[in-house]
């Protein structure tokens, strides 16, 4: 899918609006969009909405051997993916610069700030440690992916519970959630990224840029800070040169914003904790319909399946019996078998020598009594057959497959449906190999 380019008039309009301190969505320059945090039913799963930018985060853990250079520390793995549904321009499997820079920034924010205590993830020093894996998916791109992802990441890490483990000598016992309550991760502080977009060579500043604003901005400053006013990461990119007092001003703004966001996160975590404890319903199925009026919800309902058996019996009785399965393999020599019949080559007029290398078939599994469009399994034992009556010399090369001669006895047969595309290239390859061999002689 191609991304729609930004038109010049839109660009001029946005820049002009910034000059007059107006934003498209009516915010003030230092205002954040609405942040909403919702949790899934699994531990460590959350979705963060920053305006219309939406990020899904999931934390999972696994016992692995530690890194040789750090035998007593757990392993952290962060991964942000830009889902193709987030924006039309995002293609699957393309490592764009944006993705790399976002991943790197989030890694620095979460890993280098030492917000997670990795020593507590050690189970048996040098042998088994917990690997904490944080996967983030961008579900909708409306600007400021960094902030949304950092909030989602830290919320998911705070929400996650890892299985309890006990070590007795050499034995490590991992308890399931039913046996012992899972244990939260040890998190020292919550670093949150705040993004500032600069316009007109650094004259104007906007906090939390939307996607349109990001397209026309000159530069971006990201400050990751926690509520104790400690700067965890700071990164400036783009073509803007910033003055010292600008950066100081931004860090003061960031301190205020981070305090608000941290409070919001704490409240959301508490609400979820309360809902789980009280046995109330939790998970996306609960939170989503309450957020949107257009959502429709239906509780589980029973399906009337009383006379299902009679109906099924009728169908089977009325159905034609399955056509005969031709599944008797004919063994020519050890290692070579034939199922089904060969068919006429459909490649048109071939030379006599090439006709010798004509192809074959595969067996087909029978279609069931009802309609089914599933890809049928194919039998993989095939054999080469010749059409002409000339004897064929078996090649001396051991690399080529052995060709079994079927002279005169078998009449020409019709081709059954080849359901595999792989056969054609391999046939062609085979033919090409054979031709080469002949010319070299």
């Amino acid at each position, binding site marked *: *899918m*191609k991304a729609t380019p930004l038109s010049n008039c839109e660009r001029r309009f946005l820049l002009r609006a910034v000059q007059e301190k107006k934003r498209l969505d009516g915010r003030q320059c230092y205002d954040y969009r609405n942040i909403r945090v919702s949790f*899934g*039913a*699994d531990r460590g*799963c959350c*979705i963060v909405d920053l305006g219309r930018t939406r990020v*899904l985060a*999931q934390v*999972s853990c696994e016992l692995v051997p530690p890194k040789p250079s750090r035998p007593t520390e757990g392993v952290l793995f962060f991964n942000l*993916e830009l*889902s*193709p*549904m987030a*924006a*039309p321009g995002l293609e*699957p499997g393309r490592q764009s610069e944006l993705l790399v820079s976002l991943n790197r920034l989030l890694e620095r924010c979460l890993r280098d700030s030492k917000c997670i205590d990795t020593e507590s993830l050690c189970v048996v020093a040098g042998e088994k440690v917990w690997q904490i*894996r944080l*996967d983030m*998916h961008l*579900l*909708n791109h*409306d600007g400021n992916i960094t902030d949304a992802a950092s909030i989602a990441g830290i919320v998911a890490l705070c929400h996650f519970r890892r299985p309890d483990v006990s070590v007795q000598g050499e034995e490590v016992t991992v308890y399931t959630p*039913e046996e012992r309550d899972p244990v939260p991760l040890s998190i020292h502080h919550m670093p949150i990224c705040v993004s500032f977009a600069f316009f007109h060579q650094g004259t104007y500043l906007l906090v939390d840029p939307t996607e349109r604003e990001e397209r026309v901005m000159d530069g971006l400053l990201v400050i990751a800070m926690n509520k104790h006013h400690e700067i965890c990461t700071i990164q400036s990119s783009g073509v803007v040169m910033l003055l010292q007092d600008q950066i100081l001003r931004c860090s003061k703004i960031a301190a205020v914003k981070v305090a608000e966001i941290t409070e919001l996160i704490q409240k959301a975590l508490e609400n979820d904790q309360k809902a789980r404890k009280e*046995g109330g319903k*939790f*998970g*996306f*199925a609960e939170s*989503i*319909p309450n957020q*949107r*009026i*257009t*959502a*429709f*919800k*239906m*509780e*589980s*309902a*029973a*399906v*009337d*399946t009383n006379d*299902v*058996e009679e*109906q*099924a*019996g009728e*169908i*089977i009785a009325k159905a034609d019996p399955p056509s005969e399965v031709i599944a008797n393999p004919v063994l020519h020599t050890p290692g070579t078998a034939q199922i089904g019949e060969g068919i006429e080559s459909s490649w048109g007029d071939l030379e006599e020598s090439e006709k010798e290398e004509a192809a074959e078939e595969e067996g087909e599994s029978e279609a*069931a*009594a*009802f*309609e*089914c*469009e*599933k*890809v049928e399994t194919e039998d993989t034992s095939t054999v080469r057959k010749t059409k002409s009556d000339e004897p064929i010399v078996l090649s001396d090369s051991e690399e080529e497959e052995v060709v079994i001669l079927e002279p005169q006895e078998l009449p020409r047969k019709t081709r059954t449906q080849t359901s595999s595309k792989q056969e054609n290239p391999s046939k062609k390859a085979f033919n090409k190999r054979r031709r080469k061999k002949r010319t070299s002689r």
Partner: protein
Amino acid sequence: MLQGYLGEYTAPLIHGLIHVAVRLCRDAWLQRRAQAAPEERGERGDTSVLAGLYGPAEAKVSKELPDRAALEVLLRPKVGLPGVLERSREQLLRQTCEAVVLGVLHPRTAISLVLQVLSDAGSLLSCCLNAACMALLDAGLPLAALFCGVTCALQPDGTILLDPTARQEQEARAILTFAIASSDRKVLMATTKGSCSVEEMQQCLAAAQRAADTIFQFYRDSVRRRYSKC
């Protein structure tokens, strides 16, 4: 055009929640609540899939088809990279969608459907099918019929469970997933895991067709709500 397909079938529904939201692309949330007894703490969960659809839009020259739209389905798991299981599910979904989408009306275009698994508590493939259909519906693509996905689990003693949870799926002898069309309740796609006899399969299919009635009624109600509220 869609009115013609909102026929007059009525029946109770399995369960579920379909949430349709307007966004840059058309999205559909589809979630299923696992049927859980209150005392089973471990069973709590819901299967949620978020579907987003772009199209019909300009296709890359390498991917375009001269006579119809090129449909592409991407299924992204929550944790880890997509593997072989996701690829095979993508193919099943693609073939089902291609059977209903009238691609000949939009030649040389690309329709790209992205599904993100938000949580998995059983019956994931049928949830994906439903989300895909809702996304197609909400995006306004021309469809020959709607379809829905139903999963049946055959327990070792022969009873049929519709919409199994993850634990029920593990204990089942066979799991069958059907994609059923709305026009005549015919089967668009069937996939099985495990072994079952022909009679059992026919019974599961008949049960799935019953359940499909309820799901289509649910589609109808949710679309009605969506378009009456916005």
